């Protein structure tokens, strides 16, 4: 199918026009590896959307990587099923020193509405005391990006869970 060059140019111009402004932060680029561990896929979809052109993830100093051994931060979505726990542990072990674990969404934090049962462990809270959280069901890409920038700056995100006194629990 032949496309009019003007059509393409206008589409490019629109995408440029809509391009969001980067969240300014200092420091080096942080490499992110995302891992789904059993959820409705809502948070995983928001992370995919965050990696698209509607949000300035890369311009804000983050880079998505395909392998955990290349990652600084591990972003986990889902309530952590028993079946996926091995993969989560392997990904964590494969990461280089200085790594951080971040639970994206309520399920990844404490299992959300699913809690723990014969097949789910109930989120990162049941597995580790060393993690950060970005709550929501699902959190919006904007909220995730905002919280990631805050965590990168070393502060506590304003979007973290109020129920948890240490939503940003700590970083390893």
């Amino acid at each position: 199918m032949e496309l009019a060059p003007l059509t393409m140019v206008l589409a490019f111009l629109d995408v440029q026009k809509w391009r969001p402004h980067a969240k300014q932060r200092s420091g080096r680029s942080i490499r992110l590896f995302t891992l789904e561990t059993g959820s409705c896929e809502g948070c995983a979809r928001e992370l995919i959307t965050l990696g698209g052109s509607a949000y300035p993830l890369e311009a804000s100093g983050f880079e998505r990587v395909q392998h955990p051994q290349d990652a600084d931060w591990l972003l986990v979505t889902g309530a952590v099923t028993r079946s996926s726990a091995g993969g989560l542990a392997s990904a964590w072990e494969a990461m280089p020193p200085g790594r951080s674990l971040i639970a994206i969404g309520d399920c990844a934090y404490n299992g959300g509405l699913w809690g723990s049962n014969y097949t789910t462990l109930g989120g990162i809270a049941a597995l580790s005391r060393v993690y950060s959280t970005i709550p929501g069901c699902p959190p919006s890409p904007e909220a995730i990006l905002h919280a990631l920038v805050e965590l990168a700056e070393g502060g506590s995100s304003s979007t973290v869970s109020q129920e948890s006194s240490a939503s940003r629990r700590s970083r390893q």
Partner: protein
Amino acid sequence: MVEAPILEGGERVGLFHYRVSASGWLHFLQQNERRVALLAFWADEAWATALFLCAGEQPLLVSTAIEQGHYQAVSPYFPAAQWGERMARDLWGVEAWSARDDSPALDDGSWFLTTPLATHPLPVADGGGQPLPACRMEPSQTQVPGLLAIDYALSEGVMQQIEVQIAAGHRGVLSRLIGLSPQEALPLISRITASGFVSHPLAFVRALEQAEGRRPNPQERDRRLILLEVERIGAHLFDLRQIAHSVGGGLIASLCDHAREALAALCEEYGLSRRLTDSIVLERASEETGILPFVQALLLMVRPRLMQIKQVMGVLDNRLKNSAIIPTGLAWEYALGGVVGRASGRYVDFRLMDEGMRVQALGGARRHEGDAWARYRQRIVECEESLRIMEQIVASFGQDSGGEVIPRTDEGLGVAEGAYGDVWYHLQLEAGRITKIQIRDPVLPLLAVLGTVLEGQPPEEVEVMLTSLGISPAGAAL
């Protein structure tokens, strides 16, 4: 293709529900193999139940008692029953005689109980898991947002002996729902799958209303119909984005990204959640008209963006043609719904059965090629169709359609035509609590044909194939 079923000697136990003896069950399966389409198969410790689609798109539930943990398998006659039989075996421990496949579907050895939904589940000392296959494509290696793994053997650069794995995504949904009141269950059902934040709770609420002999008021009915179309547009934009991204169509992916986020922002601006989570409620007493300005704003925002996507989408044609073909016969045999079915020549759309649906707005272009290109085009056409539907609903919002009042039976069967096809809920109530519930997500029959579609393809083609099919395993893994 769908004819009147032969059902002899069954006892009617619900509006669409019959119970038959073991011999009647076998006779029914043998006699109706080519007459009706199987939509879903479920079993628990007491009953095996099959949901069929008969002439006039009428549903039919047929059940038979489980005898000493066994029943005659449905899959030799209706292959689409395979996943349901495997799941019932994992969850309740009931065995299907002569099943086409009796390998585990959900229990991969990681649970601390076997048959966890049975009256007497067995504890497991140490889960060992299944042996690793020759090759495995892990969920993190695909563009699918959920937990879908693909096991295969690689021979001369192409995949063979394919097995689709969704066990890692099983969250024990049914075990959580049983015993809850509908009010307690709704927030969980609203989070079963992100591909159905509206369609799943809507199918549930419709089943519930049938069980309780209630009908929604016309305003609430129309509000739900609108939300279903908004969800459809958002889901299609997500899939179009994923498809474009998988074949290097960055510009189209960007246009879809921006359109979907503008839609989410609009939902939020008008008091809904961004992805419509929790937008379906059990009862809404007051007349709802706040959604009308939302729809007006949506029409103004989405229409030009869709037009722009349409104008540039042709650049992907060559990359998508002849990819992941699902022939018409396969689509009918497995009752594949939604975009996948309609792009393969199975023109079934349960919105035609919805009370109050403006059917004149339905019936956009339908395709038969069955490839990724056809599904891509079908999604665009269906977005335009959704806009027409909403436009017509707004023009006559809340008009009474005069449906009949049904008696309370405490058993309900509800369907909603979601973005990925028909979602079904079958439930039974006792003293206001859910005693039985079964769910049919449209990805389930798709999983049954996925191996056939991927067979003989190189692994590097999997991404575009999966994204074009819109695979979202959460609704099936439950």
